[in-house]
């Protein structure tokens, strides 16, 4: 039970600021602009939620290693960091409804023959540790597939470009960005990872905040503001099932 601070939502309203953890090493969900300010799907979502709550938004840049501790030590109110959920994670924190789809796929050069998860047998696949594609691939990849888990997106991409891995799992927008640089190795979409959406993370036992954020998500889906974000960062409309 929360003793000291009765209710996170009340605190936020009183403070007039909501503190939200966003990634800076995971485009297109979060990276930086030339002014080192955060930009991306998660960042826009954070600002949207702040606006609808009528409070100022304080963005806290996080990595996959420290995003949950930030939340658990009450240094942020929400984590919007393309979190996927599983039973284990749900024991540690709560999740809202889905706010983003995950258009991530498995990519490889043209000469690598992969059409489905089963074809990954014997291949080395690079992913970003803790991201949704890591969780999903770990579930669906065959025994003999070797998954290499890098610290951030940059590690995954560098591993692909330098030939350390044959195959990577990442967002299609990211793959497009790699292609735009005309690299010697051209990633080609092989198959889509099961569409498993992203959720916003918050501390356990915060029903008021949970309801409020869920309401905002629902509203944003209806009024098209979330769709605009999806179009902008993922290059595709928000799918209907979200």
């Amino acid at each position, binding site marked *: 039970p929360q003793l000291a601070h009765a209710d996170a939502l009340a605190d936020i309203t009183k403070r007039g600021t909501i503190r939200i953890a966003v990634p800076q090493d995971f485009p297109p969900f979060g990276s930086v602009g030339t002014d080192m300010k955060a930009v991306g799907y998660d960042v826009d979502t954070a600002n949207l939620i702040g606006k609808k709550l009528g409070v100022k938004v304080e963005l806290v840049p996080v990595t996959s290693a420290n995003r*949950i501790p930030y939340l*658990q030590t009450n240094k942020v109110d929400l984590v919007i960091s393309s979190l996927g959920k*599983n039973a*284990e*994670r749900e024991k540690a924190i709560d999740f809202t409804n889905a706010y983003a789809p995950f258009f991530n796929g498995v990519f490889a050069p043209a000469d690598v023959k992969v059409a489905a998860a089963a074809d990954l047998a014997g291949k080395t696949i690079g992913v970003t540790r803790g991201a949704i594609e890591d969780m999903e691939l770990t579930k669906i990849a065959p025994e003999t597939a070797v998954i290499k*888990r890098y610290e951030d997106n940059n590690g995954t991409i560098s591993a692909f470009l330098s030939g350390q891995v044959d195959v990577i799992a990442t967002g299609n927008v990211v793959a497009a960005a790699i292609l735009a640089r005309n690299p010697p190795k051209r990633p080609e979409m092989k198959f889509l990872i099961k569409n498993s959406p992203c959720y916003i993370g918050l501390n356990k036992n915060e029903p008021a905040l949970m309801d409020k954020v869920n309401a905002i998500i629902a509203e944003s889906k209806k009024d098209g503001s979330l769709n605009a974000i999806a179009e902008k960062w993922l290059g595709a409309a928000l799918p209907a099932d979200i």
Partner: protein
Amino acid sequence: MTYQFDFSWIAEYLPLLLAGIAVTLELIFVGALVGVSLGITCAWIRALGPCWLRPPFVAYVELIRNTPFLIQLFFIFFGLPSIGVQFSELQAANLAMAVNLGAYSCEIIRAGIQATPRGQYEAGASLAMTPFETFRHVVMIPALQRIWPALSSQIVIVMLGSAVVSQIAAEDLTFAANYIQSRNFRAFEAYIVATAIYLLLSILLRQGLRGLGWALFPRRLP
């Protein structure tokens, strides 16, 4: 405190942790063995070797000592493939540690060589030994003995620094901790466990190196 610690995951992830410890140990053993050998060679060249051979070794030492280990690691793992030299993440991590420790131990060992009394070189010379023979049989062992404590500390420092190899997906102890917390969001518990293991490893490593010192150098220096 509202946070409830939960270490119940340890049983499930124990194999991963043990594998991580094994990798960390392998890194430090190979790194120390190759690194110190490299350091001895390099120290010999810098202190006593032919002049024309020295500049590249000076450059090597300065370059390594003045840049972060992580960047050296990236260079070896991500950079070298562009010239056709490809290492697995473990090989790359081993190599990076050896290269890093080589540069630091070079400086340490050089200090030990320079502290050798001139009389030792002269005694070697007057017995008709060549400078290299004198170094090999007369100077090297006492020089290593003189700097053994400093060298041991450096090895422990490098062991702790090896934590960053998880960034190139080498599955060491830190990787295990990061992996675990990415699955169950138990970051505190995972890091506390990892920290405790690192502390234990460094204490054991220090003791081990001290013991090795006694075994290698049973006599006290005058």
